[in-house]
């Protein structure tokens, strides 16, 4: 009823159809994508770690140091293979998806690190110290990551924990959001552009980090 009436009114107002003759404005390109993403992600309060430069074990270790976490909950098991993490891990299935591994004893890192890929509950997610997932794209211009809910994944594990970690491949970096949206098509039920940790300035325009979502937000850049 309302639908018909609203649409009828709107149709009666419509002029003749004309595509707007205007070109999409250009967005900045041609910068060092990695450097810019790192700088702008950190300007937004995030932590940037380069696994290519420092090695995956080291940046994982630093992640644990900086978040104070001893466990990482993964949203989707494919991260293990994609980022070649499992060569130091035991078979996930052997421990009911509870994975334990130790790094070289000479490193100044207190391990073992426990990785959970098992199903977590909502109440559980609030108590998770550190969760991790894949960023499907990184936007250099604003220091932004694209997080997409995919099959086997959910929405809450990236938002409820105290700290959240993204894995990003260098090849998934783009200069600006326009590049991203010229090719991206939505597939899951929710995608989120994430730029740093949860924040507010609702009281006297004073910045506070970690309102409802993670207080710390990290990205590990890999090959």
């Amino acid at each position: 009823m309302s639908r018909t009436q609203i649409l009828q009114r709107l149709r009666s107002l419509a002029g003749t159809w004309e595509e707007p003759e205007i070109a999409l404005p250009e967005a900045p390109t041609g910068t060092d994508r990695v450097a810019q993403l790192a700088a702008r992600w950190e300007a937004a309060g995030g932590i940037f770690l380069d696994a290519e430069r420092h090695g995956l074990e080291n940046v994982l270790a630093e992640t644990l140091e900086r978040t104070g976490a001893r466990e990482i909950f993964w949203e989707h098991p494919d991260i293990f293979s994609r980022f070649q993490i499992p060569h130091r891990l035991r078979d996930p299935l052997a421990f009911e998806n509870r994975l334990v591994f130790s790094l070289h004893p000479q490193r100044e890192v207190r391990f073992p690190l426990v990785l959970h890929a098992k199903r977590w509950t909502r109440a559980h997610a609030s108590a998770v110290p550190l969760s991790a997932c894949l960023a499907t794209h990184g936007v250099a211009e604003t220091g932004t990551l694209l997080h997409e809910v995919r099959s086997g994944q959910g929405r809450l594990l990236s938002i409820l924990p105290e700290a959240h970690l993204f894995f990003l491949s260098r090849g998934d970096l783009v200069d600006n959001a326009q590049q991203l949206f010229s090719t991206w098509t939505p597939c899951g039920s929710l995608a989120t552009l994430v730029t740093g940790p949860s924040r507010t300035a609702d009281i006297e325009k004073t910045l506070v980090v970690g309102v409802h979502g993670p207080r710390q937000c990290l990205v590990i850049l890999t090959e």
Partner: protein
Amino acid sequence: MNWKRSPKTLRDQSRTALQDSQLQHNLQHTLSRTLHSRQLAVAEVQNWEELRHYARTVKLHTLSHLARYLEQLEAAVQQRGGQVIWAESARQATDFILDLAHRRDFRSVVKGKSMLGEEIGLNAALERWLEVVETDLGEYIVQLAGQQPSHLVAPALHLSRGQIGELFERKLDVSVGEDVERITAAARQVLRRKFLSAHLGITGVNFGVAETGTLVVVENEGNIRLSLSAPRVHVAIMGIEKVIPRLADLPVFLKLLIRSATGQRMTSYVNLVQGGRGPGERDGPSEFFLVLVDNGRSRILADAHLRETLACIRCGACQNICPVFQSIGGHAYGSTYQGPIGSILTPQLVGLQGAPEHPFASSLCGACRDICPVGIRIPDLLLELRHRIQREKGARAARLPVERWAFQIWSWLMSSRQRYELFSRWSRRLARWTAGDRLGRLSRVIPPLSRWNRERRLPELAPKSFRELHRASGEGGS
């Protein structure tokens, strides 16, 4: 229409606001910081004017083909399993949500900040049956205080940390003092429980992308992400003017909105909602509804002079820059939408008689038009509305003989150079007298001039006119 007109007039409320030194401090402090951040963020974008022009063109194009784009949006949302509800009025929108809650036996709602929600009086309608919790920190503060938001983007702008700390201690029985971190942590703790137990999540929509059915919701806190992730059902409410054609347009609008609103390059989260939980996904709402709300918008659209009001993307920049808003804050307007955009939108939503003072609450300085990311010609629309209000007042105003005589005398003076020069010479002299101490003070007390002079000082006029100076310098004739 939820808009409750305060028994006090805008003029009365402005006077009260001007005398409230705490409010004056809060406004000055927060607005100047917001404007400063915006300035830095905008200066970084080399083609800002081009972006504004693009956004304005796309918005006006979309508004003139709204039926087509809304149908496209509806089809795309439905294709992904979402349900689309059309509401002509505020009542229809709130009734649908209430009815849904009844049918599902829902008891609790978490809400993301939505100006449309304020406009349609959603909280008042739901609170009779359900527990409704605002989850944006500013909105939560305002809800605890039993007030309305006083700004499009920063709802608790009018309150200081001291006032908010006191409110939290009184309402939540926590000890937070004036510490912003502790206030925020207390809110996080309370609201976390609400998110996880709520049955229904309600959010607004910043942009609805017709091409893909993507509903874009911009935020910093994560409360919207939680509101549309944790509850069983997600309802998004969207004004019909919020549709944009393509995903490719989105980056332009995001850049304009975010930099204008908060001075950030990007907010912490921009949610691109495609519906409820998809196949194989672990969590998320099992049902998704999009409520498209007209509530007077198609009527505004029918008015060729005023329709660009609906191009607004609710960034709040016009409020931040407006000298009137800077002086009186949002509550003095007594309406959902305040400041320059509120002054043109409110009379159109509630009728000229419902907000007869709004179009006059402006000095017409034009700062709002200059700062508007979609270039809405707010001063022109204010003048148009003033004109209509005067016309509606009708013959009574036109018949005032004083006004007619004044204009007759004015046109008589202006139509001869000698008369004009004589008049300007005498008025300069008169102005010097009245600016002087004794007469100046008298003119602030004795009506009718006192009403004007009480709050204003005439600028000192030069003793000689440009023409006289030019003649005296002897550099050529006239």
